[in-house]
């Protein structure tokens, strides 16, 4: 994430570095598409095989990468305000925790409570104990409602087995 001064930049001025990165990413995706399409064994049939559409979309992405690059060089991107990287990282850390806990069989309640606490911290709360209790109660209620009442199967860990 690049850091800009808060919305001070007027549009149409200077080269927008983030815009160039976006253009580069689009071009990279186009290349991956072409590479992947070449891995598909050619099957002879009437009309088009499965490798045609990826190439068509790759060409489209290539053109759009160029168009985005022109916009970026001209500084035509809409102005944006400064972003708080800590908040974004906290939520992403919460998601990573959630994925890890689910992956290691820690169960739904533990995983989503972790996400609840980190997200509310990202929004500026520092009272972790209260948030932990609220998160645990909320996710336990959700677990009971969906797993037991609606019989969706949510992953069970040590806490769920106690219920």
């Amino acid at each position: 994430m690049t850091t800009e001064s808060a919305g001070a930049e007027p549009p149409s001025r200077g080269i927008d570095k983030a815009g160039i990165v976006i253009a580069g990413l689009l071009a990279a995706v186009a290349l991956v598409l072409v590479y992947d399409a070449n891995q598909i064994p050619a099957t002879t049939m009437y009309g088009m095989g499965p490798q045609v559409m990826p190439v068509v979309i790759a060409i489209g992405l290539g053109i759009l990468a160029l168009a985005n690059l022109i916009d970026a060089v001209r500084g035509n991107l809409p102005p944006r305000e400064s972003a708080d990287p800590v908040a974004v990282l906290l939520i992403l850390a919460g998601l990573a925790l959630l994925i890890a806990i689910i992956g290691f069989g820690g169960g739904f309640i533990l995983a989503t409570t972790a996400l609840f606490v980190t997200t509310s911290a990202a929004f500026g709360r520092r009272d972790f104990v209260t948030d932990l209790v609220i998160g645990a109660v909320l996710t336990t209620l959700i677990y009971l409602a969906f797993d037991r009442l609606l019989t969706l199967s949510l992953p069970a860990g040590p806490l769920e087995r106690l219920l």
Partner: protein
Amino acid sequence: MDTFAALAHGMAIAVQPMNLLYALIGVFLGTAVGVLPGIGPALTVALLLPVTYKLDPGGSLIMFAGIYYGGMYGGSTTAILINTPGESASMATALEGYKMAKAGRGGPALATSAIGSFVAGTIATIGLAFLSPYLVDIAVRFGPEDYFALMCVAFVTVSATFGDSPVRGLTSLFIGLTLGLVGIDKLTGQARLAFGVPELLDGVEVTTLAVGLFAVGEALYVASRRHHTEEKIEAVKGSLWMTREDWKRSWKPWLRGTAFGFPIGALPAGGAEIPTFLSYSTEKRLTKYPEQFGKGAIEGVAGPEAANNASAAGTLVPLLTLGLPTSATAAMMLAGFQQYGLNPGPLLFAERPDLVWGLIASLFIANTMLLVLNLPLVGLWVRLLKIPTPWLYAGILVFATMGTIAAKPSVVELSMLAGFGVLGFLMRRFDFPIAPVVVGLILGPIAESQLRRALAISLGDPMTLLQSPISATLLVVALIALIAPFILKGLGRFKANED
């Protein structure tokens, strides 16, 4: 089929006690979720999909009808009371509605929006019921090449024609099309873009994408700029009811809004944005009280709200008759059909008339329930708005991940959800529209298989696309819709230079 008989049959299905209960739950949940700031109708439907996993298709679609209208109504409540439209279609409502709420006229603003939505929704649903059979008759004559051309029109109009920047809109669309390629190719069984990951062979789930882009992306975005914004809820002061004067000033905008909303929604042009703003500017021009516009004119709420709801019912016309979603919400509805292996389109009208007409009849019922329920419950919705932001977004994320965990509790799927969240955050930050991604993902594979079917029938001759008059016409329309914004932009620049 005789529309009246079909509709009466649908009504008979929809008023069965169990189905009435489903509609009621749908309306209630839809409003409750839709009222939360930052959650638009598309996300409401995506978040509530897991609730309907275990229901039979009929009951589930009826619940969807309720969720669809409920989510829309919830969105306008938020727009009026805290000036945070959950989606672009509520932006026009927020303009005058929030001013009315600030001036202590939040009650009448909510009332004119509820009654206007009811009037517009009812008229538009009647339109849907009577227009659909004709479109189905036309649609059965469509060959695969015609379908492909029609989808090209939808791609272009959804992404390029009406957005701020055609380049950014098309970029979003192509991201969606790329995601649509992932998985096993249905015609040959070859894996594409799966990179040896078994979970990717099934393709990208529409719900995972939508929830990631809308819910996780929105939470990241709001968190990243929480120092810039301060939301203030306007209390609903004074009477909830509209005065005789309010009624007199509202009924014409309701009807005009409906007249804008339904046809534009029914065209495969996508989005309720255009009709709502058309309605807003029309009311501004026709009003007897121009001095009130910008300060809380009731016409400015009544018209756009009616247009919004009418166009929402309008988008169901191409969705049900052609299987063509033209908005993110319609794409989510299509995903709802697909989870039961149902493909909307002319065939569904012939094979499952009970389902289609039951759904259409439920729209009437959901609409009526909203009117009866929501004005008395407005106090409850306002209380929902008062949840502190940290807990609100933490709760939204818990609920959002729950949907994915319930559907596919795998590390890969959850990582995709997080990845789409980052994508959604970046797209918001750099002002790329999000709906074209969802539409591209769901419509891309369908368009590809139609094109390949057409080419297989013509033995590989691409001229088949131009030999069918329907397809040729539609492709020309798509081309014009693609080029027009660039030319108009050029003209605008030319004019600006002259000044």
